[in-house]
């Protein structure tokens, strides 16, 4: 661990066992598909076999005639008998298509039946009439004027105003500073390349699952493995036109998400089926549904030109970044233009971003959305320039590193950040200082950046008669945030981790919380927890003051101990709690924050050694080190876990993962057999170095750690492969097939 300076913490920085741990190692924990409601029916979704088609007619009469089938719903059940299906808003049309299907796997109808087998048999009996349209799958092709149009009503948002006619380009966004022509004129070395990456999936192991019960009093209860119970409630409300006050979302344990479980898919459909049948309805996806019917992350085509002076100063960068949004508009390219140069000080930059719809699933975030593909391009060019200038790639990055006060991704200056510290840690690491020997081997490095988002968090804290506290939070816990929040509360209150009991509660039981995403929970909910802790301390001061014959503002609280002004009276938090609650009256406080949109940034830096088999083109990861600025590592083991998990996801993305489409727009590899996420045999131990440069925007200096770790791997591995083979890799995945093609022309 590399730490600049931080206060002495008692609980923060330790590695306690998480509160939900025992249930998870014994199989007792309840995930999305484990919810069993009495009398529940099973629901399944019928999906489009075509990538692009007009939906002419759906006839469910044969399905409804099958023994055990209770209901079939379509988008008609959303808009009502007289509603206009063509006006269905995007979020609704994505979960049940209205007049058009826009990708293979697009939901068109759903069945509720007495069990899952009957529901699946019934799907085969639903007759759907499609008018098949030409599909467009490639982002650059979709931008062409003659491309098949997905949305007749879509007009490009551009700096010059909206496009005249319909287009697949959702928006052209520009991120520009300085004068790039002047900038390039100053450069002695200029490199320029085009890169492309394929659509990839988050690959969480738990498929989406949801249960809904629409009661006869119109109260709707939903159990779901979502990344955000409040956003899910909001979406269901909007899609179904049902008021929030009548919806309760009960989050189950969640088996991974990485951004893919923010949007709702099954929840509103299960609700419709429950309304139609009067019974609870449980729905789950199978793995093919997950690949074809949820939100992977965009494929891209990125052209970047980068220039530096001969003394190693980056001066100008230009880029044209096209990102697939999938079937409905998104904003990945806009983010990409902001983050692509975040790690460096480059005076003159201009990046054009193009968000483009194509006939593929509506894309969603996947850890640091848009940044890994941008870094795959940028960090390779950085390496090429360093090579040309014969400067060590790490030292070159250090020479140009962003730092406190330099221009941040949206133009505002960075507050204190830790990129330099990460690169220095890499320079000093055991890994970088061990020479790599042997044929066909190469070492690569790369940096990565991602924002921290803040947004809204609320928690409730109630004091128990024995002086312990219960912490109720509203963010689902994907990777140990119950523990990291309990630790921050314990630290605030000066009590032990064991004295805090953290529970994730439903949307009726706590104030509003935004998603578990954007690396925000430990950060922003941590601020809410800190706020609640401060409120609790103030409340106890109020209660202690009269008994100590003083005023609340005379009561001090330090290191877990209340004292009066002269120090003659002292009480630990626990003693005070027992005295005023155990023998007094109950006490509950809340903490609510809106931590703003941007909340500081996080940097990561990775080093990787590879060996590439010249006969088979297969790349083996020999050694891997992940370095990351966590601000303050609340639970270092979980920080390491995030870094290691991100690195291995990145390894998969770099080497093998891709949505492989056939000519008809069908994903040919929609199973874990052929969508090749890394196994334990494909990766070595992932060494970690946690850097701690406290975040000035957080009371404990915390930075979000969930996302930056997936940004460097694609580029780091590409840089390593380039050194091992002498050939630059501009396309992902760098599969054995691609390596044989590019290194030996076997194509």
């Amino acid at each position, binding site marked *: 661990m590399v730490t600049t300076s931080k206060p002495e913490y008692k609980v923060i920085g330790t590695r306690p066992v998480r509160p939900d741990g025992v249930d998870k190692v014994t199989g007792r924990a309840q995930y999305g598909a484990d919810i069993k409601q009495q009398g529940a029916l099973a629901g399944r979704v019928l999906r489009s076999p075509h990538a692009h088609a007009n939906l002419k007619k759906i006839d469910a009469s044969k399905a409804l005639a099958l023994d055990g089938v209770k209901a079939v719903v379509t988008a008609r059940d959303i808009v009502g008998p007289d509603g206009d299906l063509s006006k269905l808003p995007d979020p609704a049309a994505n979960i049940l298509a209205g007049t058009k299907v826009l990708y293979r796997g697009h939901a068109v109808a759903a069945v509720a039946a007495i069990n899952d*087998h009957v529901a699946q048999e019934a799907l085969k009996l639903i007759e759907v009439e499609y008018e098949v349209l030409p599909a467009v799958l490639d982002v650059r092709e979709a931008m062409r004027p003659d491309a098949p149009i997905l949305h007749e009503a879509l007009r490009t948002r551009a700096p010059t105003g909206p496009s005249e006619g319909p287009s697949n380009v959702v928006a052209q966004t520009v991120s520009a500073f300085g004068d790039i022509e002047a900038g390039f004129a100053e450069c002695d070395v200029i490199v320029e390349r085009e890169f492309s990456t394929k659509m990839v999936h988050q690959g969480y192991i738990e498929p989406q699952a949801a249960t809904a019960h629409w009661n006869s009093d119109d109260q709707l209860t939903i159990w779901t493995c979502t990344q955000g119970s409040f956003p899910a409630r909001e979406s269901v409300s909007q899609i179904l036109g049902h008021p929030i006050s009548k919806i309760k979302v009960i989050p189950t344990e969640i088996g991974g998400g990485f951004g893919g479980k923010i949007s709702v898919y099954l929840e509103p459909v299960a609700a419709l089926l429950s309304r139609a049948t009067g019974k609870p309805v449980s729905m789950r996806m199978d793995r093919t549904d997950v690949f074809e019917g949820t939100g992977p992350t965009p494929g891209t085509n990125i052209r970047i030109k980068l220039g530096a002076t001969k003394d190693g100063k980056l001066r100008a960068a230009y880029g044209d970044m096209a990102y697939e949004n999938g079937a409905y508009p998104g904003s990945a390219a806009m983010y990409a233009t902001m983050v692509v140069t975040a790690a460096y000080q480059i005076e003159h930059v201009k990046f054009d971003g193009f968000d483009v719809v194509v006939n593929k699933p509506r894309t969603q975030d996947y850890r640091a959305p848009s940044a890994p593909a941008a870094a795959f391009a940028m960090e390779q060019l950085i390496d090429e320039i360093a090579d040309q200038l014969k400067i060590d790639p790490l030292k070159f990055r250090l020479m140009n590193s962003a730092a406190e006060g330099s221009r941040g991704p949206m133009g505002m200056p960075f507050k204190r950040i830790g990129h330099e510290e990460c690169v220095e840690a890499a320079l000093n690491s055991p890994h970088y200082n061990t020479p790599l020997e042997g044929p066909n081997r190469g070492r690569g490095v790369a940096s990565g950046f991602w924002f921290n988002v803040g947004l809204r968090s609320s928690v409730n804290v109630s004091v128990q008669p024995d002086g312990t506290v219960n912490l109720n939070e509203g963010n689902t816990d994907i990777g140990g945030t119950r523990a990291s929040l309990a630790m921050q509360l314990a630290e605030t209150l000066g009590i032990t981790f064991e004295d805090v009991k953290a529970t994730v509660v439903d949307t009726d039981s706590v104030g509003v919380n935004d998603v578990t995403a954007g690396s925000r929970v430990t950060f922003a909910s941590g601020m809410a927890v800190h706020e609640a802790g401060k409120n609790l301390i103030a409340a106890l001061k109020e209660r202690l003051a009269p008994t100590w014959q003083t005023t609340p503002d005379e009561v001090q609280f330090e290191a877990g101990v209340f004292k009066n002004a002269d120090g003659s009276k002292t009480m630990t938090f626990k003693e005070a709690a027992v005295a005023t609650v155990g023998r007094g009256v109950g006490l509950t406080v809340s903490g609510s924050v809106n931590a703003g949109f941007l909340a500081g940034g996080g940097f990561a830096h990775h080093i990787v050694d590879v060996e590439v088999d010249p006969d088979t083109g297969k790349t083996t990861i020999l050694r891997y080190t992940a370095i990351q600025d966590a601000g303050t590592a609340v639970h270092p083991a979980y920080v390491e876990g995030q870094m290691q998990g991100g690195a291995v996801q990145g390894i998969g993305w770099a080497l093998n993962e891709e949505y492989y489409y056939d000519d008809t727009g069908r994903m040919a590899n929609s199973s874990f057999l*052929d969508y090749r996420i890394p*196994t334990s045999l494909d990766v070595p131990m992932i060494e970690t170095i946690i850097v701690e440069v406290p975040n000035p925007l957080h009371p404990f200096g915390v930075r979000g750690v969930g996302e930056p770790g997936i940004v460097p791997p694609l580029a780091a591995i590409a840089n390593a492969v380039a050194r091992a083979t002498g050939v630059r890799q501009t396309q992902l995945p760098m599969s054995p097939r691609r390596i044989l093609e590019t290194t030996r022309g076997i194509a």
Partner: protein
Amino acid sequence: MQALEYVAPASLDEAVAALAKHGATARVLAGGTDVIIQAREGRRQVGVMVDIKGIKEATSFSFGSDGSLTVGAAAPCARLYGDAEVQKRFPALVDSASLIGGIQIQSRASLGGNLCNSSPAADSIPTLIALGGVCNIIGPSGKRDVPVEDFCTAPGQNVLQAGELLVSITFPAPAANSGAAFERFIPRNEMDIAVVNAAASVALSADGSKFESARIAVGAVAPTPLYVKAAGDALAGKPVSEATIDAAAAAASDAAKPITDMRGSAAQRKHLAGVLTKHVINTAIARAKGA
């Protein structure tokens, strides 16, 4: 999954009767690692599962007095590769059996299932061919034997007639100074379907300088696993040298008529057919020499 019936005959006669009774909708169930999933995903219509794991002849394996080996069609891979005698005398079978799926699959998956599923990429079939395996088939009209290389006819199809089942596979005793090996190429290190696979069995002269005979098979490069006679012929009677081995590898690559799909390109497969053939010949030679 569509509704099923399940029967578990206790003898071969009962199994043949069950298959006859249920006709075209009946499928043999061995380890189920193909057929259960195919039925669930609607890739095979199955009305009745005829579980043959209660039949001794289909689940045991034994060595004959002449050193031959007969493996029950439904014996799980894990039992086969865990057997010390099999490891010693038929290491190529161990190569294949220990590569099919992960440990969880190997607990159930059988050679018979792998063969009868008749995938062009099946990881045991090249080995079964290289070792000169013979299929022992039983059916309504009695027993018959078919060499493994003649068994598969198209992807997912084979010579089994309605009502027939594969009882076991018999491998002749390995010749003196012989060795065999199997290898596959996959993008990950486990859990993938072969991009290409290959097996070789070679018999050397007593001094190890010359190939007496050889059998070579490659998979995932044609609609069925290929027995490449030309590759074996390129070795037989020739000195053990890099040039001869290269010639055999070239013959295997020539015989390959692959397609491009999500698992690999045609060019990549053709290339790998040569690379892997070379590898397996070298390993087989090393084994023949007792290394």
